[in-house]
């Protein structure tokens, strides 16, 4: 609770707000393809990524907010913890198999004195990150997710959510070296497998030491934090009402007031399923390799698409029943002896055993079938785990669910239908960023407590 946002009502009048007029999905791709990865070497310098920051630098941004009295109070609090507070910039990084998730805390309570002290490097990083919504060809800031006027470790600021493909990681490290990031003496808190995989490169290339953190610890810590502070005054969590009825199925906000125990299903490239009993007491129940990476990987092979957005776009237009064999395709109707509805999928891609059907199928149908197959399978495993662990609340997170209402609705339906209403599927707005948030919190935790 120490990080609880205390001044939600503070009006941040002078700050530039980008999220209202920028659509994330239009800002390039989040995924893959090495040719357009983060400032690839074929791209002339200047049109690359972070090296452009000086060109984009705007000098007239106001940093401070609130009344003089409030600023004074803040100042006092700030000073009381100052000696325990890590130096800026504050980053939390989660380097996954497909995506790197980066959260950046932008302080908005910077004093004139601080501003003067602030080194040029730091300033340019802040301005570059906060004044752009896209970085290079593949870096994206999810502006709609920005948490505004958040107080962390006694400082008020905005939390920014940025992602780029893991393939661009070498380029990112290169930039860290070029910009002499190590001179800032900040600790780079990193989680996810990449924290281990790229540790040496950070050290060798950029003279940076990573503070490596366990991804599941970070995931849970970050999730609980974001749920606590809320989403700019709205609940972070939501569910679907009437999940079994496509007509009246609606998204409803809710809170995780008493979140434990919960089954946490993290769908990234692969899937991890955790039973969480308290912030520090959890176990990894199981996992599956059929995750977001499988959806995208198979879609690329089957349809020739290149990005997650493209794949989802196709899937939204397709019809999976042209690809999947349903119970009614085999039994003519319901398989009553076993209580199976005729509309249930009996065999995913089952129609594709026939050459005739293979020759007449559309890419959209294939994309849809892939999405439905992967989603249903995750739902099925999650449901079995929930029953085995005797947990009724199933929380789905991870970037597979980003802009993916087909999957979220399908998961909500699957949980409800197969459990006869016993299980409820819950979702969180910041889907894939909790690991990175958790990493940032670790940075603040290590220095915050006297």
């Amino acid at each position: 609770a120490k990080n609880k946002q205390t001044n939600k009502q503070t009006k941040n009048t002078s700050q530039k707000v980008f999220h209202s007029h920028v659509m994330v999905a239009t800002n390039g791709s989040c995924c893959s393809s090495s040719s357009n990865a983060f400032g690839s070497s074929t791209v002339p310098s200047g049109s690359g990524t972070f090296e452009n920051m000086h060109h984009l630098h705007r000098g007239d941004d106001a940093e401070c907010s609130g009344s003089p009295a409030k600023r004074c109070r803040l100042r006092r609090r700030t000073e009381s913890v100052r000696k325990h507070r890590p130096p800026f910039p504050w980053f939390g990084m989660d380097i996954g198999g497909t995506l790197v998730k980066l959260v950046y805390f932008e302080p908005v309570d910077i004093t004139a004195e601080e501003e003067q002290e602030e080194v040029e490097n730091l300033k340019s990083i802040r301005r570059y990150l906060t004044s752009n919504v896209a970085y290079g060809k593949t870096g994206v800031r999810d502006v709609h997710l920005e948490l505004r006027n958040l107080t962390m470790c006694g400082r008020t600021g905005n939390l920014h959510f940025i992602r780029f493909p893991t393939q661009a990681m070498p380029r990112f490290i290169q930039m860290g070296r070029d910009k002499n990031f190590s001179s800032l003496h900040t600790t780079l808190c990193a989680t996810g497998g990449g924290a281990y995989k790229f540790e040496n490169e950070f050290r060798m290339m950029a003279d940076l030491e990573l503070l490596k953190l366990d991804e599941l610890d970070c995931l849970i810590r970050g999730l609980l934090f974001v749920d606590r502070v809320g989403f700019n005054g709205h609940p972070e969590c939501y569910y679907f009402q009437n999940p079994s009825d496509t007509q009246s199925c609606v998204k409803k906000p809710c809170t995780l007031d008493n979140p434990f125990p919960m089954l946490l299903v993290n769908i990234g490239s692969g899937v991890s399923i955790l039973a969480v009993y308290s912030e520090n007491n959890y176990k990894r129940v199981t996992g599956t390799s059929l995750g977001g990476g499988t959806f995208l990987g198979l879609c690329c092979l089957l349809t020739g698409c290149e990005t997650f957005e493209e794949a989802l776009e196709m899937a939204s237009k397709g019809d999976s029943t042209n690809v999947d064999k349903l119970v009614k395709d085999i039994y003519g109707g319901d398989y009553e002896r076993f209580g199976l509805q005729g509309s249930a999928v009996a065999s995913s891609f089952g129609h594709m055993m026939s050459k005739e059907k293979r020759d007449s199928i559309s890419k959209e149908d294939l994309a849809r079938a892939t999405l439905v197959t992967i989603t249903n399978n995750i739902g099925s495993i999650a449901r079995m785990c929930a029953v085995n662990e005797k947990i009724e609340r199933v929380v789905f997170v991870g970037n597979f669910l980003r802009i993916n209402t087909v999957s979220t609705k399908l998961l909500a339906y699957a949980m409800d239908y197969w459990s006869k209403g016993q299980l409820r599927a819950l979702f969180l707005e910041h889907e894939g960023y909790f690991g990175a948030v958790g990493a940032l919190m670790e940075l603040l935790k290590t220095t915050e407590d006297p």
Partner: protein
Amino acid sequence: MAECGRVDSNTSHTMDKSITLPPDEIFRNLENAKRFAIDIGGSLTKLAYYSTVQHKVAKVRSFDHTAKAAAGDKLYEISMQEEVTARLHFIKFENAYIETCLDFIKDHLVNTETKVIKATGGGAHKFKELIERKLGLKVDKEDEMTCLIKGCNFVLKNIPHEAFVYAKHADSEFRFQTTNPDIFPYLLVNIGSGVSIVKVESEDKFERIGGSSIGGGTFWGLGALLTKTKRFDELLQLASKGQHASVDMLVKDIYGGSYGYLGLTGDLIASSFGKSATADKDFSKEDMAKSLLHMISNDIGQLACLYAKLHNLSRVYFGGFFIRGHPVTMHTITYSINFFTKGEVQALFLRHEGYLGTIGAFLKGAEEDNPNQYSWGENYAGSSGLMSVSPDMNPMQRARSGTFDMLEMDRLERQLVNLPLLQDPSSYIPDTVDLTEDALAREYWLYCFEEALDGVVKRAVASQPDMPEAALRAEKFRQKYRHKLQTLRQQPFAYGSLTVRSLLDTREHCLNEFNFPDPYSKIKQRENDIALKYYQKAVKSLDELSWEEKQFALVQGVLAGNVFDWGAKAVSDVLESDPEFGFEEAKRQLEDNSGVDIILGVMPFVRELLSRGTEVVLASNSGPALNDVTNGELQILTERIAAMDPVIEAGLREDRLLLVQSGSSSPCLDLSRLDKVLAMVVRERQTDLVIIEGMGRAIHTNYYAMLSCESLKMAVIKNSWLADRLGGKLFSVVFKYEVPAGKPNKDCGAFSPS
């Protein structure tokens, strides 16, 4: 293999006619066939029928000895009689041959009152009209899952070594499970185009507790899309050659190594197809097929484990066309189950998995015959064995034998049950050496049986001097058995664990197949005649000994008698070359003894027990095997001995000596498959000592058998290789007395005289 699923009937018609069915081998005994059942799957048809088989059996009949007991008269007469036994036939072939097969059946079907054919499987409706038109039978559809479960229960109960664990890298890929008398509850994971997970609690109670749409159809359909390879088998072939790591994102691709904190190794798949999310790279068909295979196998394994855990079940059987005899999929499923249960649950597969549906459909149709009240036995002579048509395992044979796979099961005269005195029926393994795992032993014994084949053929012909065509039949027997031995050399696992017992049983089945029911009947008759003449003299000389000397002499008598064994090559060589070799020679081998096997060895021993007031149950084979005495023969012999020995006579009269058949027709003994009557007698009489005699019954089998009462295992090692193996000399003696744990252990071990 022909194309399956051809639509053009003209093409398929020509193709069908191009195969001629060898009637001696396929669709046998059609004349008497009734009760057909058919299971038509996506590519294979499985046909079942019930038939009766006429067999020659050797019957013994006592002469009337009260009138004249002149020397030289035969003790009993042997006659060859026809006996009718029931047999179940199951034949598996590709759907493309359905029409040819139906024509063949129609042409050969003689006298049948059958009006309906039970049908199951997805393809049943597609061929309904064809079947009804060709056979004139009404197609009666049965629920697929019900048939599957019924069939599964049937094979688990009736076929020893039906279930096995698959271990790709072990010395023996197939580890067969001992038959647990209690087969329930279990989980059956049927991987067809989708996956059904069924919990089976009893003969009639089962429930589909879950399933998945990611199954064999997903592998096939998605695989065909990705690799442009049409056929399921070819996809598996591709998969077996691929490297999944080029397509899958492994833990080490993300972590650079293992994820130590969670104990996830670097080679673990983190995201299936995780590396294929790119437009720039081409992936090989093999690699994609492999990745797909892993993805689907792991997923099914994971779900199966979750359901097994939820329902607290430890026996999980896998079946369906995805598994059916494919080492590749058995391996990946096994791997997955091991991974997800940390080795707590083993994936089990079934030898006759492909037949479950048709067996079940057949049983549904035969309910009025109540087939479940009988015990059935796999006929090794008429069954193809595991992987007979697997291209991976046996390309040569596949090319030769076409695409027909067979299973034949004989209805046994008696119901077979466990010996009630087995300490732990579920862990009892009859056989001492598993030749599937012991390659050296396997090589030796296969060689041994092949070497002995000439002698067996000669003996078979000699046993039927009045039948001129016996030589021809004996030749056919030779070919069949030699072929079986060759098959077993290639596929030791074809009929479950390969053992000396199974080699002996297979030989008996093959001999029966060609109407040599008891090649040793005449030899036995002659020997019994001679031995009987010595009986009184032997008993008299025993009675003259002191008590202690007598005990030794009795035991040595049993062991010396045991030397007369036509099954042992070392002995049969001597016996064949020297027709005069008799018990005098055996005496020399064993210094001091008396008698030939049963009459001069066992009977004096029995007599001693009886005279001490002990009740004796004398169990012998129900059917002939080598020169072992059968129950029929023993009845007559005992009668004759009783006529000259008041002790035996009193024993019979007072019901203290019982002659019971064991239910076995083998030189070996499976204590988990004994005649129900014997088990009942053992229980009623509260048997407290079991004596097992002979190399087949006490060494090849039951050497390690643990009983809940005292036991004595006696045998002479009549095989130099085996003697070597056990660390002794040829003609050494095993005399193993055991007391079950908890009771005082008086003596234990083997001893050798001199």
